[in-house]
């Protein structure tokens, strides 16, 4: 049994490597695509800045407060601010060149100051936004809130507009008919602020910085160890590697159908070789090719992009081997269920694309709806990607590989069982 088995494996490897197109598609294309996706998922590198959100500001007010808001926004590292008029701002948003335009209407500074103490009409801060970039609108809204609050409060507690407002408000409060106790308290507050101005709180180096966020955020990426850093390339190389090894194995199945069409299976079946040996030979050669694809992808990712196996080499190799066996069994399933090479190629391309899309090979599964995240547990690619992620950037120990390995081997067993049952052995 061993001589024919080794011959089967060697022949399939020879055929694979003799086809330059297969080699390029299987080894180099996933590296190119994974590098591209990795550069996106990894975020900015140490040497490059994060992409800024393009924001246009239209200042109809031209008050101290509106100018302060514009200046503050211009200094924000998240924004790339351009000053524009109405027409230019609308046109830029419509063309998709700018995500959001913020319009400060006339009287914004005065009204916002009056509204700051609660009894004035609130002015409207208008935004025009690109509907395809609603996420950026939410970010702009949040960041602008901080800038507006800071600019208004700084002016009201330290600027000329705030002082004028107070001087106007104190006689109005004195003349008002409000409850005597409340009136006394409010006047005390306003006079205290006035006293603050008189004491120099409004000028020089003592100028108020305005209201600011009452906290700072300390962010920590949580992985299995303090020395384990997130590397987006690890995920993208896992995803693309799996995608292309599945394509390679689907092609293996189609090649088996072509072998049948070309009469080669007649030769194989006429030899004194068992059916198990014939399928096992295909399975082993497929698994070796799959493993090579993953190995080449990850070696490249390790050398060029610094991807590390932080979860344990035993687990990583275990997941890679289980994944390769699953993919190889998938290829034989294609040969068992396919009628003709042409139809099998079409159906399996669709099946592979669905599996990699649902399995999180392209985009992480957490962006899926909850029900879909549960559903994708029946997709082997999900387990392969999760397993490789766990062994690389998540840095989970080899114990984290056990479940993915077992599930992938179960898929391989199921694919093999169906393939063995449905394989057409009769060669007429």
């Amino acid at each position, binding site marked *: 049994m061993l001589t*024919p088995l080794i011959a089967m494996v060697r022949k399939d490897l020879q*055929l694979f490597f*003799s086809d330059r197109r297969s080699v390029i598609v299987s080894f180099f294309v996933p590296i190119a695509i994974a590098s591209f996706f990795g550069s996106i998922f990894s975020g900015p590198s140490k040497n490059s800045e994060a992409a800024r959100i393009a924001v246009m500001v239209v200042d109809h007010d031209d008050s101290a407060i509106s100018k302060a808001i514009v200046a503050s926004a211009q200094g924000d590292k998240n924004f790339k601010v351009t000053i524009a008029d109405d027409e230019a701002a609308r046109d830029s948003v419509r063309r998709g060149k700018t995500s959001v335009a913020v319009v400060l209407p006339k009287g914004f500074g005065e009204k916002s100051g009056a509204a700051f103490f609660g009894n004035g009409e609130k002015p409207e801060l208008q935004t025009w936004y690109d509907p395809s970039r609603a996420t950026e609108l939410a970010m702009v809204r949040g960041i602008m809130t901080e800038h507006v609050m800071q600019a208004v409060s700084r002016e009201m507690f330290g600027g000329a507009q705030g002082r004028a407002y107070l001087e106007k408000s104190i006689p109005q409060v004195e003349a008002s008919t409000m409850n005597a106790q409340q009136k006394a308290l409010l006047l005390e507050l306003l006079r205290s602020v006035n006293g603050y101005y008189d004491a120099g709180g409004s000028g020089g180096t003592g100028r108020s910085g305005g209201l600011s966020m009452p906290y700072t955020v300390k962010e920590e990426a949580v992985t299995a160890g303090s020395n384990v850093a997130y590397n987006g390339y690890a995920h993208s190389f896992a995803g693309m590697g799996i995608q292309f090894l599945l394509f390679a194995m689907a092609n293996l199945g189609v090649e088996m159908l072509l072998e049948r069409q*070309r009469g080669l299976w007649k030769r194989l079946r006429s*030899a*004194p070789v068992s059916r198990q040996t014939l399928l096992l030979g295909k399975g082993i050669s497929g698994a070796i090719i799959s493993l090579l694809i993953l190995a080449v992808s990850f070696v490249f990712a390790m050398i060029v992009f610094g991807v590390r196996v932080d979860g344990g080499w035993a687990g990583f190799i275990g997941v890679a081997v289980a994944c390769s066996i699953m993919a190889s069994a998938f290829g034989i399933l294609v040969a068992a269920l396919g009628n003709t090479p042409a139809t099998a190629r079409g159906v399996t391309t669709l099946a592979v694309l669905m599996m990699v899309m649902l399995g999180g090979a392209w985009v992480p599964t957490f962006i899926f709806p909850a029900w879909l995240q549960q559903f994708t547990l029946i997709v082997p690619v999900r387990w392969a990607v999760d397993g490789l992620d766990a062994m690389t950037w998540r840095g989970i120990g080899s114990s984290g590989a056990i479940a993915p390995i077992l599930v992938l081997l179960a898929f391989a067993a199921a694919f093999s069982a169906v393939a063995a049952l449905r394989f057409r052995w009769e060669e*007429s």
Partner: protein
Amino acid sequence: MSWEDSCSDMAILDVTHLRKSFGPLTAVDDVSFGLESGQLVGLLGPNGAGKTTTVSMIAGLVTPDRGEVLVAGRPLAGDTDPAKRRIGLVPQDLALYEELSARDNLRFFGALYGLSGAPLEKSIGQALDLVGLSDRARDAVKVFSGGMKRRMNLAAGILHDPDILLLDEPTVGVDPQSRNAIFDNLEVLKARGKALLYTTHYMEEAERLADRIVIIDHGRVIADDTLAGLERSAAVAGAPITLESVFLTLTGRSLRD
């Protein structure tokens, strides 16, 4: 000549009462004949007569519904029966790996029969010598002409030195030179004592090569005799007798598509 007559003690291959149906279609129905060492039997029949199905059952590619195939008096028992080593198949298709060299193709097919090392290399050399492709051993099959591929197809079938060679239309689509070369190869094999079963549509091939001719139609054997015997049985006073006229007399003139 009856089947009992053709199944002598000398027969290395006995086909007995083979039957095979595919759904409602009975492709082969009670086919029996024998084949002796050093003998070439031509298996003739119109399209769809059951020739290829018969050859497939002998080669173990299709399981008969009934009947059996005896190799040297023993029935074939399953896929891994060592007796399968005594049978070589030259299928109608060019069953070769185009991307591999002639030598690598033969290395692979030889290994399927358990050959390895020096014996395998020796067999490869002998097979390539016989079909005249020794000087092209390193070339990929895809660069071969149609005739060279046909000869390679034959080399792959005889590589393991089988006693019985099943040839399913081995000269389809080749030029007269290559066909003649294949005929010469078959004559050599016959002289070495191999038993050859040769299916063809070409009457002149059967006339040149066959020691005995089995004509099959609608899945049944309708004639089994030497060329001379067939011609005698179909002789009509004054009319010239050829194998083709015998064949048309037996199978009719209606088209078989």
